[in-house]
């Protein structure tokens, strides 16, 4: 479970998130809202990329402030632009990166990378240069690189924004099949139709919290 208690966040003078408390226990959670409504900051608070200016964020009873490394292990993060997430020049090397950071043995790394390549339909691209992949393949590679370390939660920051319709659907299916808990920041309303819970952010506060249909209605109302 992810728990926010009295959390707020400011960049310098500007308050990006006004104080809020929240518990997230569902398997599929979406966060929608206008640009600049605080969604991305919210996402980055979950895995300790950002620390709250006040209050605490707990992931399975670990405080992101004092247990940064353990929290990173529990929460994976998939960014909007896979180009900014792929670290190594070759596909299989990139997938191995997270395991190398965990000091996993070489033999085990090879096996787990092969399994991950197969799971995300990338086996035929194992030795390919990452920059030669298509947008959809790159996003699959990014997801493979994050899931390989077996996090319990995965935060997706607008995972479909840069993709065409076919690849949007590919990513949606992939998220749907994940065993991990997914927290998806998005503008893509099709993606979240079957989610368990949707938060609507507006000007740094949670404006709505509930089922997808009502949340989407509220979101469209706000956007009007």
């Amino acid at each position, binding site marked *: 479970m992810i728990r926010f208690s009295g959390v707020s966040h400011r960049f310098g003078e500007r308050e990006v998130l006004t104080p809020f408390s929240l518990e997230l226990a569902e398997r599929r959670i979406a966060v929608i809202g206008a640009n600049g409504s605080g969604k991305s900051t919210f996402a980055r608070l979950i895995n300790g990329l950002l620390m709250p200016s006040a209050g605490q964020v707990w992931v399975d009873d670990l405080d992101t402030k004092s247990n*940064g490394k353990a929290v*990173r292990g529990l929460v994976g*993060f998939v960014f909007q632009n896979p180009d900014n997430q792929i*670290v190594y020049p070759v596909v299989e090397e990139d997938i191995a990166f997270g395991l190398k950071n965990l000091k996993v043995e070489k033999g085990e790394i090879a096996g787990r990378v092969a399994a991950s390549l197969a799971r995300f339909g990338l086996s035929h691209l194992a030795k390919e240069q990452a920059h030669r992949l298509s947008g959809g393949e790159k996003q699959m590679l990014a997801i493979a690189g994050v899931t390989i370390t077996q996090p319990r939660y995965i935060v997706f920051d607008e995972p479909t924004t840069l993709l065409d319709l076919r690849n949007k659907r590919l990513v949606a299916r992939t998220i749907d099949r994940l065993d991990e808990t997914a927290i998806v920041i998005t503008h893509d309303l099709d993606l979240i139709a079957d989610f368990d819970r949707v938060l609507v952010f507006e000007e740094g506060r949670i404006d709505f919290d509930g089922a997808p249909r009502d949340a989407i209605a509220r979101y469209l109302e706000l956007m009007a």
Partner: protein
Amino acid sequence: MIAAYRPGTSIVHRLPAGAKIVGLAMAGTFLFFVANVASLVVCLLAVLALYPLAGLSLRDALATLRPLFVILVILVLAHAWLNGWEVASGSGLRLAALVLFAGIVTLTSSASAMMGAIETGLSPLGRLGVDVEKISLALSLALRFIPMIAAVGAEVREAQRARGLDTSLVALAVPLIVRTLKMGEEIADAIDARGFGTTRKDGPDRST
């Protein structure tokens, strides 16, 4: 990206890249102490003999020298004019031998083997507090970024061409750098999110 490396199985190919780099440094130093023209001719022939030994042809040797050809000619002529023919031929031979030897190292070692050798060479520095893991990450990242920056550069160039600014280096470099730096923030976040290194310190952050 294609390196000059020529894959092969010769004895020279099988030598560890690190050994070849050390060999090059030693040969380079040695050549500076050889002054006699006849001995330098022997050195040059010895280096040339390494090419067939590495499964390479004399044409490869010529290709290695070609970019230097003009400079070599100018150098020899300048020396001949200033210091006489003996010094001139000596320094020409020395330079050719050195460059040919270096060419062998590059032609017979893959870029990844060379980088592995660099990492290994730096690893003793680990005890002096140099973080070899970080150097290794930087090397991989640079390889990853080169095609990416070239792509961004092409985009910027196209955008500036639309405004008729595509020959201005400033108009190309500034947007390229600013975009690159912005990407850099997110890339660093992604690397941290994937568990590299230790936790980042709390502090003000530019990203939103």
